[in-house]
């Protein structure tokens, strides 16, 4: 189907067009959100919020960017928003724990296991995701879009609304920071 016609149908509120959009993008949205949020149930909730936002604001979509770029933008923004809220609530939970409340589950969540990782890489991937979680929000988004969703630099710069050189720099810093924190981890392990 022609993308312009498809967008027009969506803007008219066609239910079949919306269903087709969800069927086409649900895996991309879920995978992106899951890699940022690092919890399957929360990722499903956020993915649903992404599609609700798409449904509500498709009327404002002017077609300046590709539909997939716009959807990735909403997905990464929602996921980061959720990630920030979670971080803030963790901080609050830490404070409440000082006064004797039991927040063990909140403070020590199980290591995230991405379901798409090859069996032989599971343990290493767990460790990697733990370190990805320590990156800054922008670095995390750029790294996820590049290494998990497989987007090229141009697509990432469109999604993040940054220049190509900024994306390159973000990815370089993300990889450097990952190697640095992993090195600290292995130095403590081996020595």
């Amino acid at each position: 189907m022609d993308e312009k016609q498809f967008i027009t149908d969506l803007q008219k509120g066609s239910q079949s067009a919306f269903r087709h959009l969800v069927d086409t993008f649900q895996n991309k949205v879920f995978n992106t959100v899951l890699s940022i949020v690092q919890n399957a149930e929360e990722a499903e909730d956020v993915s649903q919020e992404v599609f609700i936002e798409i449904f509500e604001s498709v009327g404002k979509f002017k077609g300046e960017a590709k539909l997939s770029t716009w959807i990735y933008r909403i997905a990464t923004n929602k996921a980061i928003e959720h990630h920030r809220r979670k971080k803030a609530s963790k901080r609050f939970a830490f404070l409440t724990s000082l006064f004797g409340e039991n927040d063990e589950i909140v403070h020590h969540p199980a290591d995230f296991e991405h379901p798409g990782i090859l069996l032989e890489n599971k343990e290493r991937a767990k460790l990697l995701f733990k370190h990805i979680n320590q990156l800054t929000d922008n670095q995390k988004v750029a790294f996820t879009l590049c290494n998990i969703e497989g987007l090229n630099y141009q697509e990432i710069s469109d999604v993040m609304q940054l220049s190509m050189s900024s994306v390159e720099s973000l990815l370089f810093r993300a990889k450097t920071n990952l190697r640095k924190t992993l090195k600290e981890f292995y130095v403590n392990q081996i020595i």
Partner: protein
Amino acid sequence: MKNQEEIERQIDETVGALEGMERAEPRSFFYTRLEAKMDISGMQQRYLIIPKFMARPTFVWSFLALVVLLNVGVVLRFSQKTVSEPQNASSFAKEYGLNTLDSNL
């Protein structure tokens, strides 16, 4: 030196752990659950469509005070009316000739 090489090897392998990974998929019937959520949020939005000034605490409290005052007024008025009830009842009986029935019995 050997440790350094080992550390670098471990880092390379860990960074490469994402190679060959597949895309994660949501649980089955994602669209059905999404539709249900959209229905709920749509309902909530319908209930939220009230003019802004009506959501202000000053308006809400004034409105509640007015309702209470009206209730108090109604209660006071009714309690005054009940005093004159016997009078009304006798005039009603007279009008419809109910007293004659009593005297016949």
